[in-house]
């Protein structure tokens, strides 16, 4: 039996190994070899995670590798923290990751740079694992930045397209803006606590009184980091553009794992957040707003992946709302289920795109349920799950969130329920337009190969039964996941739902009923539809505003991007070429011109010389007499 430390080290090491070996051998390896190797390694690390998970005694194990940074009193170890939280995330990352890797073998098989793709995908898994396993903020930050750069690389994977490159840079820069908060938070925490290890920070933070300004500041900064990584308002515009990457990337990075890093971070440092109620309120409302924002915009997208992207944004909003009300387990639960069904949705979308030879516009789809059967069924399951139809996983996780929100703030609850209805609406719009009606495109749809459909099926099963992980008490469950997490996250242990069983039943019934109504409404509109409403141009203003994604991109472009370009040019043309350089060169020129003028005094005329000498002597003489 291998030691737990070794296993824990292997979990991130294997994908790294894969990234390096595939990266350096990328000219030798055939497409399938590369894909197979990558998948196998991630699968292996999934196995290791499983072993660790079942060997886990509920305690917290620190795997200390070496001292990373040591300055004066600063000792930052390079160490992993293995507890139920990190284990759970490891399972999700490696598990979903394995499936998506496998899927990619089929999806990318005829891309010339497939080996590079898998190397980067493995590198991402490595970074993501560092993120969740780090035993202190700085190690987490390694992964935090690592997933960022990988996402940059993979979004711009097809580098010949300038827009894709732009999307990549946009994603990275927006993440960096979040990182500003992250770095500052770490500096603040370190200078306050003298350490960055989660365990010690949490332990010391417990001595602070709630609402301590220092903690509020720190948590706000951390949350800024989270908004960047998890695409919350105001830093969300990068996520839809990130769909420029290959679809498996969207599934793995921009749906299942990376974007949930923000939630993970908040849960990781939940002790701090528990002590900063102001921050929690902010998180709640940011989450709610984002959920609504995503849901509304999702209604008007015609690119299949864009719809899913905005739905991701909105779902992440749900999760943050949960964190905002202190329902960490509910948040993590939704992270898990969302990983299942959103990954499934993306992979399904990928399968559709694959089937249609790269077509992404749902207006050119339709009637695919006959041609791509498996994809359709799995997609349907995922859609029902995300819509929150019992007993699928989405129902449990979403209602967990809704319930705890209701306990805190009915208003937020109302908004979230409305967003849930919208979710159902746009998801079924997507479903109907893609798979129902008649085909409106020109390509010849065909079902994807097994290597792609098998992961779909697996994920479909998971999204269907995933709810079982955390069945609430009202259904006689034991909230297993919550029990698990409680061993790692004190705050989870503190959670308790202040609702009577009856209220809970009522809420569930209400939301489910509303959702079902919405689905019926969607059917009436889109079910039979063969042609679609026209361009956003001929919509009433508010509708158009929503259709144009609330003009957020345009706003940022006008307020930040363009002015920054102008500033850059202005600094250079004015500050440098007009001021700095001329000033230095000017002093020289000035000296020369003065010299040129003074030369004239050396006129060559002796009388003038005599006069000059006399004058000089007289002046000096006067000076002497005055200075006595």
């Amino acid at each position: 039996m291998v030691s737990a430390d070794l296993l824990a080290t292997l979990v991130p090491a294997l994908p790294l190994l894969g990234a390096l070996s595939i990266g350096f051998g990328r000219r030798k390896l055939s497409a399938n070899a590369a894909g197979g190797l990558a998948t196998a390694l991630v699968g292996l690390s999934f196995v290791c995670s499983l072993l660790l998970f079942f060997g886990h005694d509920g305690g917290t194990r620190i795997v200390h590798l070496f001292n990373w940074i040591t300055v004066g009193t600063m000792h930052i170890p390079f160490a992993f923290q293995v507890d139920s939280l990190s284990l759970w995330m490891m399972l999700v990352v490696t598990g979903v990751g394995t499936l998506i890797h496998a899927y990619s073998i089929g999806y990318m098989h005829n891309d010339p740079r497939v080996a590079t793709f898998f190397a980067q995908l493995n590198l991402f898994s490595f970074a993501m694992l560092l993120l969740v396993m780090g035993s202190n903020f700085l190690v987490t930050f390694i992964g935090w930045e690592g997933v960022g750069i990988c996402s940059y690389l993979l979004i711009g994977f097809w580098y010949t397209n300038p827009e894709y490159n732009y999307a990549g840079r946009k994603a990275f820069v927006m993440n960096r803006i979040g990182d500003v908060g992250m770095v500052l938070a770490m500096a603040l925490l370190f200078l306050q606590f003298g350490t960055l290890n989660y365990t010690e920070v949490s332990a010391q933070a417990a001595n602070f009184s709630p609402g301590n300004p220092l903690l509020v500041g720190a948590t706000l900064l951390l949350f800024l980091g989270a908004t960047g990584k998890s695409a919350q308002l105001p830093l969300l515009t990068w996520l839809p553009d990130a769909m420029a990457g290959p679809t498996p990337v969207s599934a793995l990075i921009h749906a299942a794992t990376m974007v949930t890093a923000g939630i993970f971070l908040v849960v990781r440092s939940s002790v701090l957040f528990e002590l900063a109620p102001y921050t929690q309120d902010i998180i709640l409302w940011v989450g709610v707003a984002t959920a609504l924002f995503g849901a509304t915009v999702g209604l008007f997208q015609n690119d299949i992946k864009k719809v899913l992207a905005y739905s991701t944004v909105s779902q992440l909003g749900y999760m943050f709302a949960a964190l905002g009300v202190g329902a960490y387990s509910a948040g993590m639960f939704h992270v898990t289920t969302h990983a299942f069904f959103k990954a499934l949705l993306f992979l399904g979308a990928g399968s559709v795109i694959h089937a249609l030879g790269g077509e992404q516009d749902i207006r050119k789809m339709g009637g695919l349920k006959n041609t791509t059967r498996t994809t359709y069924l799995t997609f349907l399951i995922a859609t029902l799950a995300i819509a929150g139809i019992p007993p699928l996983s989405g129902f449990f996780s979403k209602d967990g969130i809704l319930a705890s929100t209701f306990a805190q703030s009915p208003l937020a609850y109302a908004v979230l329920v409305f967003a849930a209805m919208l979710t159902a609406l746009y998801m079924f719009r997507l479903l109907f337009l893609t798979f129902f009606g008649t085909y409106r495109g020109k390509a010849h749809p065909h079902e994807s190969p097994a290597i792609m459909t098998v992961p779909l099926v697996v994920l479909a099963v998971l999204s269907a039964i995933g709810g079982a992980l955390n069945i609430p008490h009202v259904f006689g469950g034991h909230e297993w996941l919550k029990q698990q997490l409680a061993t790692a996250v004190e705050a989870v242990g503190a959670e308790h739902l202040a609702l009577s069983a009856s209220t809970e039943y009522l809420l569930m019934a209400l939301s489910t009923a509303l959702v079902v109504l919405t689905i019926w409404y969607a059917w009436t509109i889109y079910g039979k539809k063969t042609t679609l409403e026209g361009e956003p141009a001929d919509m009433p203003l508010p509708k158009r505003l929503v259709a144009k994604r609330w003009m957020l991109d345009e706003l940022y472009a006008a307020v930040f991007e363009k002015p920054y370009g102008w500033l850059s040019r202005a600094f250079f043309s004015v500050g440098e070429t007009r001021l700095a350089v001329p000033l230095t060169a000017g002093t020289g020129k000035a000296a020369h011109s003065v010299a040129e003028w003074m030369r004239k005094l050396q006129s060559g005329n002796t009388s003038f010389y005599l006069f000059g000498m006399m004058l000089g002597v007289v002046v000096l003489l006067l000076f002497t007499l005055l200075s006595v």
Partner: protein
Amino acid sequence: MVLLALVLIPLIAAVLLLALRPAAATARGLALTSSLLTLALTLWLWYTWNGTAVTAINHDWVPAWGMRLVLGYSGIGLLMLVLTAVLFPFIIGTGYKQPVGNGALVNALLLFCQAALFGVFMAQNAFLFYIFFELTLLPIFFLLLRWGGEHKRSITIRFFLYTLLGGLALLFSIAYVTLQTPVPHSADFTALAALDLPMDVQLWLFWAMFLAFAIKMPIFPFHSWQPETYTMAPTQGTMVLSAVMGKMGIYGIVVFLFTILPEGSAHWRHVVVGLSLFGAIYAAVIAFRQDNFKRLVAYSSMSHMGLMCAALFALNTYGISGGLYQTFAHGVLMVCLFYIAGMMHQRVGSHHFAQMGGMKSAMPRLALLFMLVVGNAIAMPLTQSFPGEWLMFTGLWRMEPWLALAGVVLIVLGAIYMLYAYQRVLLGPDRSHTAPDADGEEHFLLVPLIAICFLVGLFPNLVLQLVDAPVQQLLNSFTSLP
């Protein structure tokens, strides 16, 4: 003895080159050998260093004015020696693929410069320091004057005089403080550090000394020579200037300002940090829209230097250690970046982005190497730049939280201009022309450097352990500060 050898080996090699005027290939070989020899010696010093300051040679020179020949090194000096020794083989190696003019002469000048740099970092006597400090300038001056790009004359002269201005200010200050020492005067750093100058003197003397180092680094607003000089200089010259000579400023700040004028430094630190950070942001903003790759790198260098200087003047453990650590990281980074700039120039015959782009398919290897370097430039964790920046930000926050904010903005701006540069150099629709991919020699030069980047990034303590003890000792004179 080793110290003397460090100065003499390059010197002798240079004289040989001048005397024999061998063919370019031989000249490069000789130069490379000598630099590798010094590298070996320096690494041995590093390996055998036991954490205490070393004084190897100690002779009188002109006792009357406290000029003495004292060579030695503290941890900080050793760090600089290592930096110099590590980088010069690569700088000389650059000449293989990107040759400049007459091989013998260029390499001789480079070696002279290296000898002088070793001298600067080993001198334990202010006057000796000054002499080496100026001597580094002469070879570079001739290198630029002879092999520079357009407008080389005017730009070189301007650069020369500007830096000399700083040097003279430094000399003036050295003369002043030497005279303050008890008779018999001594310009040894130990003697000068023992001085307790009155506050009013420290206040003006600070600027006289700071001017010299601010111009060398350079710090806004004393930077106007830098971008044009870096752009115009031959690649090797730019490397020496940016990677090593700029560090003399950092080193000087530590050994002069912090040890001789602690109160003055403490009093002016807000002004200096303000200037440095503003300059850093200013340069980063400018870099974004540069059309000239080399100039962009020049501005990025200025931006990093500003951050380092600011961190030093945070005057606490994290700031100073981070700043000193970063000198190493930045040096390696600059050599990489300017080398890549040189490679691109060879391939497209220009430094302008207009000529580049759409070359990734043609040169995947170069793309990979460049991406690794970019990751280093934007301080990705596990590259060597990250620990330094983390320490510097912590130090700045320790001084003033909002300063840290101003500093951290740089990681955003840095990402903006670096990634944009990467895109404009390589990405985009494929171009028809077929530029050759990075070949063996270029790998031979870049791969070790990048390996260093990641090695140090993974084990920053290799470097940090050098500066840790000296910095603690340095801070004893700043106990009053937060």
